[in-house]
């Protein structure tokens, strides 16, 4: 954890500096305004548009330095912890679950929400949960069906269907 604590503090410090830089950005339509002109009080207008995010990002930056000082002095629980940031189980779980989620997201663009939902549930229930094929198929098929009737049919909230769109047209003809 000790190494992760300081690495995260450095990443968050860079993020804070980036946010400070970005907050001072002038609007593209007004080239006369210099960067960081908007982070101060403007006469007759009050604080500029960058005032609030810039100074908050500055406080964020200061707090990351504080975290680093605590790490150096070993005064925070994480700075003295010798536990791993993620053990072998945690790393494997993150790759499997996180990877599955990003796979789900990517699949939505190809086979739509319902198809991706079905694939994700089969992956999770069968390969991660090691459930029986009956349980897996029951949940993986029923969930998209219930969602379709709830969102597309009852609520008229059309979820993306990707290349599977033609398969849904007969269903629309029947139910809408």
């Amino acid at each position, binding site marked *: 954890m000790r190494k992760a604590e300081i690495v995260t503090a450095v990443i968050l410090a860079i993020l804070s500096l980036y*946010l400070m830089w970005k907050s001072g950005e002038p609007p593209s339509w007004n080239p006369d305004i210099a960067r960081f002109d908007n982070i101060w009080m403007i006469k007759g*207008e009050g604080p500029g548009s960058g005032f609030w995010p810039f100074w*908050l990002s500055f406080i964020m930056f200061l707090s990351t330095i504080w975290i680093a000082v605590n790490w150096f002095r070993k005064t925070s629980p994480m700075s003295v912890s010798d536990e791993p940031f993620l053990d072998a189980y945690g790393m494997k*779980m993150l790759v499997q679950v996180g990877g599955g989620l990003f796979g789900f997201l990517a699949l939505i663009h190809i086979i739509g929400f319902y198809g991706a939902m079905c694939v994700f549930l089969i992956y999770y229930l069968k390969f991660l*949960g090691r459930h029986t094929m009956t349980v897996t198929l029951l949940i993986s098929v029923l969930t998209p069906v219930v969602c379709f009737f709830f969102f597309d049919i009852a609520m008229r*909230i059309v979820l993306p269907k990707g290349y599977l769109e033609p398969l849904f047209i007969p269903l629309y003809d029947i139910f809408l």
Partner: protein
Amino acid sequence: MEVISALADGVLVALQPVNLGLAILGVIVGLFVGAMPGLGSVNGVAILLPFTFVIQSFTGGATSPMIFLAAIYYGAMYGGAISSITLGIPGASTAVATTFDGRPMALSGKAHIALVTAALASFVGGTVSNIIFTAFAPALASVALDFGDPEIFALMLLAFATFVGLGGDDIPKTIFSICIGLVLATVGFDIVSGEPRLIFFDITGFSHGIRFLVLAIGVYGIGEMIWTINTSRYSSSMTQVDVSAKNIWLAIKEFKTAWRGTSIGSALGFFVGILPAAGATPGSLMSYGVTKLISKNPKEFGKGAIDGIAAPEAANNSASTGAMLPMMTLGIPGSPTTAVLLAGMVIWGLQPGPLLFTNQPDFVWPLIGSFYISNVVAVLINLAFIPVFLWMLRMPFTILAPMIFVLSLVGTFAAYLDMFDVWLMVIVGVAAFFLRILDYPLAPAVLAIVLGPIAEPKLRQSLLFSDGDFSIFFTRPIAGPITILAIILILLPLFKVIKNKMKAAS
């Protein structure tokens, strides 16, 4: 008298079939999310908030969706005890203290007494807090009507200061969490100047701002779930419970011996719940501590003392109503769950704050009425369906987790019809998981995202009014003391460090 009449009208509206049905459904969902380890009231309301648009489209107003979400909140406070007692794993952080005595009592073969005590203490805590809420809320709202921009900003500052001074988490990490929440709330177009702000890498998805639901569902639907999988490793073992009618009746009779814990929890929980950053978890822990302190048999605590179950359970229910007080009267949420409820009110077209009581009595009083109804519904359902909840707790987490992931993704898309938001939500969730491992508190960030869009205009209006002079926050009669109190709270950890050093030196 006026309050009683308004409350009676509100109760009648809350008893209308649609509202009563939603309260029952909300309580059942709440009991379930509260009971499932890894899920709490905030996960329940955040994941289900997009689905309340459906309720609104059918009922036409904001009252019914709010009754549904408030009932989830209520139910979750009851549900947390079920897994604390039978699994030894708190269903939510609010039920941590219930585990101290609930689990030993269950292991000694008296799980039915523990479950019934938890349910009845929750009911008493909920009822007492509802009565205090009804008495105080309209009065506080009428005082708050005099608040101007500096006063409201000072109150927001106080809300954040309590997180720093009393939150109990790592201070620089808490400050970081508050600030990043406030900064993320500024993404999009500045409402005062119309200038674009923080449009990262010129991605157009950021131009509409980072929506609250994206962050709330990311943190509580994805991040917390991954964190729970990592810590629980899908494992738990449940204690057998004999929940025959005879045993439940005997347990109800036994409850009268828990009067001390119930009374302390009900009173203390409410007032701790009002404080931002405090809420139900510290409320229940404090009530447990105080009850143990004044108990005639403090040595029984930790071994299955009935007061040790009653105190935290009465307190967490009482605190959940207490947290509603600043949200409803001042527009300042006292907990992450009330922050989601507040965001819901904004999405449904309401303006939270003191004017709510004068401008929207047809929303406020039915909601307060529903607190009473939900409380009764929750205790009845809890007692009647203990076996069903025990059966549901046996649902493997490997089924529950993917269903929650699916609900989170579908719910986020359905709310905004934008795949950018769904991607962002998952990225936020994974980032929240990493930060959670390193003890970065995420509740202040969620609160900040809700309060940010209110706090910034108030600060800017105040400074415009004072021509850039910050003394406006110190010189006004109401804003001044609040600001000074906020500063004291921010400096409180520093005082503690100095005190400890002086003690060590002497």
